[in-house]
């Protein structure tokens, strides 16, 4: 996939992490993971998970943690 597309996914994940409408880090991580799960295609989830396993540079801590939870 192109760099442009992975940039988009990273940006989307970060936006979700900032936007989930709950208070507290734990709830945000949970909310982000479940949002991604609910709305992303399997390929997109795969791509972001692979990206995290390669270091996940550019993801905010909440987003990175949420993505890590996806693959579990």
């Amino acid at each position, binding site marked *: *996939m*192109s760099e*442009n*597309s992975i940039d*988009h996914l990273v940006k*989307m994940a970060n*936006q*979700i992490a*900032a*936007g989930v*409408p*709950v*208070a507290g880090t734990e709830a945000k991580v949970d909310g982000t993971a479940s*949002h991604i799960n*609910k*709305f*992303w*295609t*399997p*390929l*997109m989830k795969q791509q972001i998970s692979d990206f995290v396993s390669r270091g996940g540079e550019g993801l905010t801590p909440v987003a990175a943690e949420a993505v890590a939870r996806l693959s579990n």
Partner: protein
Amino acid sequence: MLQYYEPEKDFGTPPSLATETVGLMIDGVAVDVPVGTSVMRAASEVGIKIPKLCATDSLEAFGSCRMCMVEIQGRKGYPASCTTPAEEGMVVNTQTDKVAGLRRNVMELYISDHPLDCLTCPTNGNCELQDTAGEVGLREVRYGYEGNNHLDAEKDQSNPYFTFDPSKCIVCSRCVRACEETQGTFALTIDGRGFESKVSPSQNEDFMASECVSCGACVAACPTATLTENTIINLGQPEHSVITTCAYCGVGCAFKAEMRGNTVVNMTPWKDGKANEGHACVKGRFAFGYATHQDRITSPMIRDSIDDPWQEVSWDEAFGFAADRLRETQQKYGPNSIGGISSSRCTNEEVWLVQKMVRAGFGNNNIDTCARVCHSPTGYGLKTTLGESAGTQSFASVAKSDVIIVMGANPTDAHPVFASRLKKRLREGAKLIVVDPRKIQLVDAPHVKADFHLQVRPGTNVAFINAMAHVIVTEGLEAKAFIAERCETPTYDQWAAFIGDKQQSPEATESITGIPAADVREAARLFATGGNGAIYYGLGVTEHSQGSTTVMGIANLAMLTGNIGREGVGVNPLRGQNNVQGSCDMGSFPHELPGYRHISDGETRGTFERDWNVSLDAEPGLRIPNMFDAAIDGDFKGLYCHGEDIAQSDPNTHHVEAALSSLDCLIVQDLFLNETAKFAHVFLPGSSFLEKDGTFTNAERRISPVRQAMPPQAGLADWEATMGLAKALGVDMHYDHPSEIMDEIARLTPTFTGVSYDRLDELGSIQWPCNEANPDGTPTMHIDEFVRGKGFFAVTEFTPTDERATRKFPLLLTTGRILSQYNVGAQTRRTENNSWHDEDILEIHPHDAEERGIKDGDWGGIQSRVGDTVLRVKVSENVQPGVVYTTFHHPFSGANVVTTDNSDWATNCPEYKVTAVQVSKVVAPSSWQDRQKKFNEQQLELLKGAKRRDETARQPG
């Protein structure tokens, strides 16, 4: 519901809403009517028609013509029945020798100054003056035409849709009152007195130059041929009519399509239509000519590559070609390499079929709808907080509101018929808070003035809505009992702690939003304490990177003040296109089955699998912007685009064009060769709303019938075309009529269980949920309980958008709409509506213009980080310094070449409302515009080729 043409019954004066009744005798018939009913209406209720001229039941009685005189026992004189309220025990005589004589005299005076050209008059056969002359038995006119008269008065033909012929005017003021009471524009006055008096638009201007917005209310109200539709003048009176629903905006006005054979003669707003109650706007009322425009494409076409000329083929060939290409694509690139986009302009039944074809035929969930780019945040935000992805009220509810917030919406332009209701309530004294970066018309309209205009900086809505809630919570103005009873306590407590923090206060957010803290405080107090509070919002709320958050903030505010679950209050998204609500309801989103049920929910999926006899993918599919990314990556290669012009309407045109160009198979179904179709390999001609049966669902969740008035120009209605393609793909799909599709919708969607075409015929329209619990539908939602059970207060943290003004791009561009044009303009640009707006204009504040040496009428180059375009400039104080504004109704404007693909965090709804730009004075179009022009010419050439070949083929021998 085909009917012979007959003007609707006119009761003379509006109904009284009182519950108490009075009993009286009219011509020996006993009548019971609500207190406040006029004698005229009471008579009409029992079938006694009193002659009248100045009265009509859409307007308050005026009492000027004296035609409706009656005798009332025990009363002196001959009171006007239209202005006399019925009283208990009254005995009325509507026809005595005396009143008959008096009426005849009055009529004689009118006719002595009226041309006697009835046979050649356009309203011959539908003229109240003529009918009334007949009713009163006028047989002679003793006063000749030698005296002063108005017979030579000049016609005003400036308006493209109606003609004003003052020689026929009887100065009954119905037009003036319609413009005031029904439309709320106050464009007309009666100028002069006595014999000199005449109807005049604004300050003796012609209609086009006046404030008139061409709604047609005066034309509908005029009892003579003075104000007449040009179509009636040109074509004659209709002979039958079909009741249907406007295909433009989300108000969903009901119309009578009045016909001669298969030709529409007139679109008359239907009095019994509950969304509009007999009113309309210039789009629905007059702009229907696009349906028969010469640009309509009426034959299916195919081509191998977008550089080839189009080839006209039969429907079956087109279906076969498309299906083969889609299957080949899937074989080559995998099952998920194709998808579909449905449109909010299409009927519920069509949208249902498109998502069914994608899920059952393509075998994936790559289905999305254009609601993605407008109101997807509404769906997400309201579902999260209240439990249902829909507005909570009927439009009529605004008549009971006391404080109204209009946020990021411009109802007088985008939802005109709702705006008329709103203005009526404001004239009665309700308070208005406008939240908008631009000075929209409601801020200062005739007889309407906003109590607050909070000029929020684009991109900072969340900070504003939080500040409102902060004031209410910290000043103890919240609806404590409502919150305790109706909302989740733990989440409320968490939220209250968040919102009570000083960070959310108006003082702390003033530098972000640009709104003076004191104004926010006052506005918040007014909303919390001013009685019934209602919030109406539009795309200025949703089309932001925090669109969903603002929607949730709005729902929070409504719950916080207890403004939900009864009439006069609520959260009311004003939907852009006619069927935004419906297309979302019908499962057009890639993660959701119809009725907003997640695709991973095995039980729901199972119901569909059994009904459709297929197995469905449990994973969400691609959203539109993800489709574009995947196309550019080479993973997504085939797209069926149904009634939606993504090349013009979606943001970042360069990106969209790159995506479309990389598809192996693009199938477009539309009325015209739109911008997207220029990249297509298969074109399936669409049918206009006049050519098919179906239903639309408006912003009030009202399902209204769309009925066929003329045969489809291309032979198949859209639902038949989709069915044809689906069958070619091997999907087991057969319907003889759209009513059978609705039966399937009802069978599989719990909120639609009680909906059927028979019930729609019976009730006129139905607001969902309509099921066992609510057999006649649900006008107001969340009455005793939220759909999700307890209301959820969402924590709405403000995150600034990436689109921030910088040194390089110091201005914020925001986009909007104009009354006369609709969306990408494909329809309205092909009507006389262009007389009002034939190009998109960039509005810029005088200060910013001066700094750049730009004057009114100059060309302005607009540059963002993704592209640039050129528009003509209007220097205007409607925008604040630092903000520029335009519309995107014309393809060559390229407004979306400039907008970026920054989008809402939850739904990917594009942030059309905020783009950081620079504006400079230029002399030539942008390079994109040049390229676009060439590409367009080339594509039209390729289209002409197709037509020529067809003509040759049709030559005999």
